[in-house]
């Protein structure tokens, strides 16, 4: 292991002193007799991009499911803004500002592109409309100025304006991922968990999407926890990186520290640690 990297410590570089927007403490998950996660610590500081990498089956998506509330851990805590939300279901965590996307886009086949963003916006900013619409027929009226502006801006920025009335069933993968990101951002989240947002995209699409993440951090005042198999992209876009292997954190630190970490090289290249690591410096 390289000096200065301690996989056991929950913090990541640059987060000392500040309350992270999202934290997982000593998270363990078992599937039958298999340990999917063992004592995993992770923190996502405010307005940051934290990368989460690891080989297939390392437990990355399982960790995202625990953090988002879709999976209950055997042990451990999840905190949003320092508040323990381990016992809260996924929808209550979402209302505290946690959003996520999925490895295979999870879209609502019965809704249009625009409605994906609308429902997300309303649940966070106009939650009372869930039931009020039924009484005052609010669903038939024009959306609020705030909703219209937010949704229009996001659609325009994502280049989905022309597709806003389309059903999502016929969207290609690239646009499906954009709809997921738009849906996540429409709720003005504090932190977004991105599960392989670049997979399936071609090089140009991938570069365009990854390139916008930094801009979003400032523009939306949001933090990202980014999983992707494109290690180069994750290392180049993240301020801190956590590496999982077989459910255990084997390294954490800055991208440069991760690049030079022997355990990471071994995890990706097996025993051939002498081989050149195909992570660009």
């Amino acid at each position, binding site marked *: 292991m390289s000096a200065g990297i301690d996989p056991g410590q929950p913090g990541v570089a640059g987060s000392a002193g500040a309350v992270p927007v999202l934290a997982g403490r000593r998270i363990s998950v078992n599937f039958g007799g298999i340990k999917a996660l063992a004592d995993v610590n992770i923190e996502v500081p405010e307005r940051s991009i934290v990368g989460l990498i690891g080989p297939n089956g390392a437990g990355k998506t399982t960790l995202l499911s625990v953090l988002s509330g879709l999976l209950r851990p055997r042990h451990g805590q999840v905190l949003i803004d320092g508040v323990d939300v381990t016992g809260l279901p996924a929808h209550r965590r*979402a209302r505290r500002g946690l959003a996520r996307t999925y490895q295979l886009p999870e879209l609502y*086949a*019965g809704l249009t592109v625009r409605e994906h963003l609308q429902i997300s916006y309303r649940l966070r900013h106009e939650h009372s409309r869930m039931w009020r619409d039924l009484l005052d027929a609010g669903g038939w009226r024009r959306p609020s100025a705030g909703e219209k502006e937010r949704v229009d801006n996001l659609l325009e920025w994502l280049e989905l304006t*022309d597709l806003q009335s389309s*059903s999502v*069933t016929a969207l290609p993968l690239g646009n499906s991922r954009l709809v997921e990101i738009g849906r996540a951002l429409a709720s003005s989240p504090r932190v977004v968990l991105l599960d392989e947002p670049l997979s399936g995209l071609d090089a*140009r699409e991938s570069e365009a999407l990854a390139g916008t993440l930094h801009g979003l951090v400032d523009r939306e005042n949001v933090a990202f926890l980014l999983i992707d198999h494109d290690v180069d992209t994750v290392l180049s876009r993240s301020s801190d990186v956590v590496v999982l292997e077989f459910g255990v954190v084997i390294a954490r630190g800055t991208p440069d520290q991760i690049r030079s970490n022997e355990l990471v090289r071994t995890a990706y290249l097996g025993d051939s640690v002498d081989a050149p690591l195909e992570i660009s410096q």
Partner: protein
Amino acid sequence: MLEAIIAGCALGAVYALASGGLLMTYVSSGILNFAYAAIAFFVARFYYFLHSQHHWSTAPAALLSIFGAGPALGILLYVALFRFVRLSSPLIRIVVTIGLAVSIEPITLMLFGNLNIANPPGLASQPVKVYHLAGAPISLDQILVYACVVLVLGGVAAMLRWTDAGLLVRSVVDSTALASLSGIRPTGVAAGVWAVSTFSAGLTGVLAAPIIGLTIGPFTGLMAAAFAAVVAARLRSVGIAVSVGLLMGVVTGVVERYLPSTSQFTAAVIPSIPFALLALFLLYWAFRGENLQQTQTVGGPLDRAISPHGGSELALARAASISGPSASGAPRWVFPVGLIVIAAILPMVLSGVWIGAYALGVAYGVVMLSYTVGAGEGGMIWLCQISFAGLGAFTTAVLSTNVGWPLVPAMIVGGLVCGVVGALVGLLTIRLGNVYVALATLTFGLLVENLVFNLNYLNNFGAGVDITRSGMTGTDKDFAWFALIVFVILALLFQNVRHSTFGMAISAVRWSDPAARTVGLSVLMNKVALATFAAFIAGIGGGLLATYAQAAIPDSYATFSGLLWLAVLVAVGVRSTSAALIAGVLFSLLPEVFLTYVPTSWGQVPAALFGLGAVLIARNPEGTLAMHARQLEGLLSWRRRPAVASGNPDGLALAQVGGAGSSQTRAERESVVR
């Protein structure tokens, strides 16, 4: 006691055979076959047709019916139907078998005659020999049932586990595509599975007939009881299902012995035992908070990637587009408004028997609307809407006749009572998952039918509770308009729900549970709210039906009749409000047309047509109305051109129509993962 146990064992063995057959079919095909009882009835009736009506001896009659007709029917159903729904959603798979169940019975009666059969023979030669075990009588028919449980279920289980044929079946279950690439002919294997399944159903039918009688009622009751054992086995273990089936029979035998045989209480309790057990199992899991959501039992990712039917429920989503003009450019309100105008004019045109049938049809339309809300909008398979209609009917009747309330408040309270009960049922069952919800609501319906509708206060020796029609419901013409106004009000309420934030939430919950949860939606509470609304509508509809009939009669709300109602709606269109009205009117008018213009022997045709119409959901999930509307729109929309997407120079530089790496559509991707 021993006598009671042995008597119970005979019934238990039949339960075991049925539950084992149902579960093996589910495990090896992914389909919980609601048509199991109908298939068993078909084969048993065919056996009777050969053996008793045409005096064939036992062996050839059994060979031709059980070993010939049964497997042949299975292969036919697989080739014509089940192969198309193998990877479909639970909703479609269940509705297809319900449609099949609804259509097989009338077809059977048309083929073999609608006879009143008192003592159907089994496989034992007549007169049936009776032996004694520890003083308790045991007939040769009963011994044959035990033998078949051991031989058939044990044999099939052993075959699946230890033989090459079993290996073939298991490989096809896991992935048809991979099995095919390994040189296996999956169509043959899957057809074989269905042949064995229908053989087992037929054998169960022939063996059960001497014990439970040869009419469809006890057969469907037998299947419902077998469902209890299947649920106890959590849709996994054939051994547990068979054991629970046997246990249910023994418990029934013992309870029957110690309750007074002539009591009405006994008559209500005995058939309820399996359903009470099923309810206990479900409540136990619900209170333990166990998640019984079923993972796909058949097919792998490759199967779904290459199957055009893998995501066939997505076609339902196409009908979900509720805003904006249709493809033809006409506003979407034109058709429903036109339909309502025609519906309002019809009472002025119709007379005699037709105005009565039409008025009743509009009332049915209201009940059908409850299925549109629950199944069409929410994707929930609730099989007890007819029980809510019954509860609404009895509440309306009791309040208006016994308490003296005016009709409208009585109906509204009837709807509210159903809404509350629906919310409770939903809270207890929804988190268990789709297939369990179907079974739990079926069980709830059967319990209500046996234990509530049979109360002396309500049943009144089969006459039910009277309702007086007067004023705005006095004549059939007035009633038709009254029912139409109720339908329009409820349809507008439903449209308000659809257009609301709650409506969007329901759509989100329906199409992606995890994504809905991670945007802040409570899946349980949203589904419960929708189920409450659906139950409310069913209760109002029940009140209307009872008002039309001038009495709330228990037999009108038999749980299995509700499957026919669902089949009718699905055949016309499960998502459309207009389809609900059309389905209700068709359901009432079509039998009247056959009764008036066609020979009596064709009387079963409407039910068969409704069932076959529901079966078509396998190929056309939208229903016939939506399909034809779409075809018409397609013809009218030839002028329109697709809009050309324009890029935003300040936005993300992603391709609007996807590059080579991202051209896969959601329908294709969904078929990979579901």
